[in-house]
């Protein structure tokens, strides 16, 4: 995961060097040094937790802008279903899709269409024998990276089928090239309308596929006002949407799992809850589970840091939107088969980032030093040294990234002793 082009970045000028983000980062990827935060690139999973937490808006998600793609002849928008939950008094998805076109896209293809197909293929896949149960959804890229980093044993449990964003991009491209014979592949760009930094990051650093068919990712929050304005202007609403209840449900936690028609599922949302569930799966204490859906954000994708609306309000809106919709509008013709090209081609990384050393001897020696230093520390986990907790400081000291004097509590004790 080195050379990762992250979406989550820091605006140093806004950062006050407080300890809010370091203590809540699920992979302990942030430290405060010289009065401001730094993000350890190889530890960051782009979950966006720090963006939500930062009281000074110093953490930001970077994303692409529609203007950056003006050199393409044909621009396809692939909106995440979370987009529809952002708008008040909406009873027709087509209204948003038409407005999206008016924003400067040449075509739209809903990610929820691909999601409905993925649902069908996942059902078929789950019937196979000898699967490592429970199968864990691979749709949330923050969760996939979390598993690679913190739960490498569970990498084999990840669903080896493409996430809807990737499949949607491929289908959209195919469809456009078929209907527009004048276009070449390089004339077309596919832009994901993203609810979260993790998916922006996915486009830059794809998981499980060699190259992503998605060209770029724009933010829901960035397009929100434009779409709102266009929505008022448009006169004719085009019949564009081809999504049913299942596709829309993917926007919220549990949407993917419930559509698999098994009761033996678990759906958790919020990164801390997900970590807890993954710990339990590793312990082997969750019996009889077929499928586990994990969403890093509270509420699922509607909770992503690039949305505008509160996740629960968005979810409620989606619920009324899906009324009178068919269950699914994307069905697979051939029976029981799963097309080969929908499977992930690259094996998911079992990250070695967390390792202290390459050889075990050295690692054990380092760990022994860490434990020795840790025993001495005050165990307050106050964060004033710039590390999220005392153990992380001990690790940093042994790695040469920090010094004992960084512990302000101990420094004060020494000072008081010297002055007696």
């Amino acid at each position, binding site marked *: 995961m080195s050379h990762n082009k992250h979406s989550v970045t820091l605006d140093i000028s806004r950062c006050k060097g407080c300890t809010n983000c370091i203590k809540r980062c699920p992979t302990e990827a942030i430290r405060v040094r010289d009065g401001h935060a730094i993000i350890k690139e190889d530890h960051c999973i782009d979950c966006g937790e720090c963006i939500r937490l930062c009281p000074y808006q110093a953490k930001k998600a970077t994303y692409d802008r529609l203007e950056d793609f003006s050199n393409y002849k044909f621009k396809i928008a692939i909106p995440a279903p979370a987009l529809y939950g952002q708008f008040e008094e909406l009873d027709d998805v087509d209204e948003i899709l038409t407005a999206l076109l008016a924003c400067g896209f040449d075509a739209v293809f809903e990610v929820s269409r691909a999601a409905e197909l993925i649902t069908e293929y996942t059902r078929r896949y789950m019937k196979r024998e000898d699967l490592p149960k429970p199968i864990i959804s691979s749709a949330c890229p923050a969760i996939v990276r979390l598993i690679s980093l913190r739960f*490498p044993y569970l990498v084999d449990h990840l669903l080896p089928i493409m996430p809807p964003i990737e499949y949607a991009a491929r289908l959209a491209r195919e469809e456009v090239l078929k209907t527009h014979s004048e276009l070449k592949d390089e004339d077309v760009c596919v832009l994901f309308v993203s609810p979260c930094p993790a998916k922006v990051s996915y486009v830059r650093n794809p998981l499980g596929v060699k190259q992503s068919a998605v060209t770029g990712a724009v933010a829901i929050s960035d397009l929100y006002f434009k779409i709102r304005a266009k929505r008022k202007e448009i006169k004719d609403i085009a019949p564009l949407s081809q999504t049913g209840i299942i596709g829309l449900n993917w926007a919220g936690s549990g949407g993917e799992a419930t559509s698999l028609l098994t009761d033996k599922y678990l759906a958790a949302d919020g990164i801390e809850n997900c970590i807890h569930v993954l*710990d339990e799966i590793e312990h082997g204490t969750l019996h009889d589970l077929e499928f586990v859906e994990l969403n890093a954000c509270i509420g699922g994708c509607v909770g992503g840091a690039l949305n505008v609306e509160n996740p629960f309000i968005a979810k409620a809106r989606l619920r009324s939107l899906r009324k009178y919709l068919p269950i699914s509008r994307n069905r697979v013709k051939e029976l029981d088969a799963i097309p080969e090209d929908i499977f992930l081609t690259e094996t998911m990384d079992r990250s070695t980032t*967390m*390792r*202290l050393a390459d050889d075990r001897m050295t690692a054990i020696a380092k760990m*022994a030093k860490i434990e020795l230093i840790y025993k001495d520390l005050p165990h307050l986990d106050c964060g004033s040294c710039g590390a999220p907790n005392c153990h992380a400081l001990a690790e940093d000291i042994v790695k040469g990234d920090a010094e004992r004097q960084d512990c302000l509590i101990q420094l004060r004790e020494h000072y008081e002793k010297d002055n007696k």
Partner: protein
Amino acid sequence: MDKVNFHFEIDGENFTSAGEASVRIKKMLREMGFTPEIIRRVSVAMYEGEINMVIHANGGEADVNVFCDRIEIILADRGPGIPNIDLAMQEGYSTAPDNIRSLGFGAGMGLPNMKRYTDDMKIESEVGKGTTIVMTVNV
């Protein structure tokens, strides 16, 4: 230094925190570069042991010694002891109270799982005094 020791006080009063030592050990072993398989075996054995100490012995102490070629888990409690170890080792045998069973524990798989996931397991127990279990996972 050819080994590293991790010491844990297992709190018998707080059932909801049972399993935390296992989570910590998992993190440490990962940082030391052990294979996922070894980590899983140690963390499951550790977890079962922790749960046992909380359910039956009002807590105790756990020590994990990590060597290059093996990991040793020592669980010591001052609980009621195990009157019949052979019987306790049987799959499905459990003396866990009903309120614990309602949480999904007490299936009588704790000790058998600890044996299954480790390469060696020794139990010393005296009724009224306590139990010490030493498990080894070879790397």
